[in-house]
């Protein structure tokens, strides 16, 4: 039973990342009608915002300590972060320790700016072009972005730990008298995702801006005829989608250390999620994200893999095929979106 609950938690946790990425992807599909293959790269850039902030906070000056030797036998250069010398070791240390949560503030403006630049500088020119062209150009962009990151940060994963206070495990089952321990940061990640998803839905549901965007998603031309500048709003939506992907990346770093190709790892999967959810459907993306996350977790159990060898590697695709064959437009897809 507790094993079952643990896998549910794992699934929800995985699903959080899928849902956040897919949400952004489908927002861009829905609003701009653009297939954005660079969306995984945005997730990756978000993660590297956290890495960058960690590096910035750790910027150090060197003092030579003659009592210790480095690997070549020279006196060891001891590094002290500026932050620690400015704020004292306690506060400075705490700031460094909390670099990942702090990176949220750091990442939001950066990701929105990247989103704006991408949309205005590149994507804008591809609204009228075939989807194949959009795929190619955004795929090219994704390669460029990831190679640039690789150039500066290398190919190996970079450890970006969560704050010590959030690094341990919590006994979730204590309330119901069971022993279900789960990493605190993963719980944080799940709650964070739910919060972001709720915020996006609330934003679209309850603000005038959101209403216009939703109307635009349904029928761009009509809204345009009303004299509303829908393009500017869509640009902002692109920025928001980029920020969502970026935040998903920032918060993901303590779960698994980021590397430059993590975006590509998630890209194919998040496309499957979006399509299973149904093109252009925001609730569909979220639903499919969590659903596939949970199914993937259960397929990874020993029970599943001994019954059907290899099921853990193909479950996502099996589900995708079954869903698409039984529900032509995914779980909650709209008719006529991306069918030509």
């Amino acid at each position, binding site marked *: 039973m507790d094993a079952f609950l643990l896998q549910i938690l794992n699934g929800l946790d995985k699903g959080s990342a899928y849902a956040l990425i897919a949400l952004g992807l489908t927002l861009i599909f829905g609003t701009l009608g653009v*297939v954005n293959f660079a969306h995984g790269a945005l997730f990756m850039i978000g993660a590297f915002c956290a890495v960058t902030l960690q590096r910035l906070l750790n910027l150090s000056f060197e003092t030579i300590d003659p009592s210790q030797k480095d690997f070549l036998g020279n006196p060891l250069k001891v590094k002290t972060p500026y932050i620690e010398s400015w704020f004292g070791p306690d506060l400075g240390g705490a700031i460094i320790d909390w670099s990942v949560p702090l990176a949220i503030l750091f990442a939001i403006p950066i990701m929105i700016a990247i989103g704006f630049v991408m949309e205005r500088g*590149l994507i804008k*020119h591809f609204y009228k*072009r075939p*989807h*194949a*062209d959009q*795929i*190619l*150009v955004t*795929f*090219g*962009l*994704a*390669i*460029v972005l990831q*190679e*640039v990151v690789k*150039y500066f940060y290398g190919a190996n994963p970079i450890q970006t730990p969560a704050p010590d206070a959030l690094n341990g495990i919590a006994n979730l089952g204590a309330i119901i008298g069971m022993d279900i321990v789960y990493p605190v940061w993963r719980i944080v990640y799940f709650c964070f995702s739910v919060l972001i998803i709720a915020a996006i839905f609330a934003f679209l549901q309850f603000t005038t801006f959101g209403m216009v965007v939703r109307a635009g998603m349904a029928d761009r031309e009509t809204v345009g005829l009303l004299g509303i500048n829908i393009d500017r709003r869509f640009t902002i939506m692109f920025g928001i989608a980029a920020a969502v992907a970026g935040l998903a990346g920032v918060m993901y770093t303590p779960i698994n250390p980021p590397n430059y190709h993590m975006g590509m790892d998630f890209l*194919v999967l998040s*496309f*499957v999620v979006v*399509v299973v959810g149904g*093109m252009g459907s925001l609730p569909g993306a979220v639903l499919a994200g969590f659903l596939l996350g949970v199914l993937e977790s259960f397929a990874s159990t020993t029970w599943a893999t001994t019954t059907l*060898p*290899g099921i853990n*590697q*193909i479950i*996502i*695709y*099996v589900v*995708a*095929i079954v869903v*698409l*064959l039984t529900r*032509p*437009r*995914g779980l909650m897809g709209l008719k006529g979106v*991306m*069918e*030509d």
Partner: protein
Amino acid sequence: MFGLNTKDTKSLFIVAFLVVVAPFILNPFPAASAMAQFNAGYPDLMQKFVIFGIFAIGFNILFGLTGYLSFGHAAFLGIGSYSCVWMFKLLGYNVIPGIVLSVIISGIFALAIGFVSLRRSGIYFSILTLAFAQMSFALAYSVLSNPKFNLTNGETGLQVYANDPQWFHRDSLPDLPHLFGLSMRATHKLEIGAWEFQLNAGYYLCALMMLVCFYLAIRIFRSPFGLMLRAVKSNQQRMNYTGLNTRPYTLAAFVISGMYAGLAGGLLSAVDPLAGAERMQWTASGEVVLMTILGGAGTLIGPVLGAGFIKYFENIFSKINDHVLHSWFAFLPDGLEDFVVFLIHPFIGKGWHLTLGILFMLVVIFLPGGLVEGGQRLGKWLHRRKAKDTPSAKTEPAE
């Protein structure tokens, strides 16, 4: 000729000519010169050019004509490769049975996958094909290579072992893939002055296959069937209300392009008898999409150009290192040399992906019709210049 109109016959002959003399024109720089780095006229790369040319030509029959964007065509490439190596393992190293089987087996798989996937269109179709290909990849990489039932030999790749049956193998035959005794690795080196050219048996076999494929593709493009496929891309609704059943048309195109992919896979094994699972990964499927679009989807020669373009970058740019750069710019003063190398460094060697990514973007942004459009524009521009020159030349005497 060959049932083609003059224009197509001409382009077929041009392609045939280029393919035959490729070992020469791809090696324009003397072997010892610094520019030899850019020579592409060695057997492996030339084989890759034509084999991926076949792959892309086939993909183009589906994507270019019907507009159905398959993201899983690498599966057929991989299946073809595995089939061919299995023939090597069971029958012996003659390439004919392997190539024939690779086309048949991939055709069967294409029929099954296409039958299911073509029930949907647009991105839903793309994701279905992607899902099938990724499943094939995942299974080939691990489950199908377990010791009890080793169909693919997993990560290492399927290869011929000494204890394989090879029923028809005789000692007089080469211990490598061969065509009735002519080894696919047989290479004739021709040294002309400072130049060195390599004429390779495997390359010419693949080249011949590519010409046949190219010829068939022209015939298909120009046939009523090709017309129907273009009609599918243009307006399925009208197709249906004109009494035409679109499903078998798209399925036939899917199977044909799957067989092309299988043939390409078989040839890959024929020139190098090892079939790796990576050939089926989505990135490999993506590659052929890129080749086709980059070259010019829906055009006859575009996919071949795109294939050559990508393979050239992969194989030539990845091999340029700082050492080579320094030797090129050695004539510059030291500081400047280092600076130039520093500037170019991110784009070569391990940075070849970056260069390729940038080029993708540039081509798509500025040449929506791919390289073929680039060529057409260049041709028009030259034509205009010529046209400008000619009248002035004519008017001169009058004055």
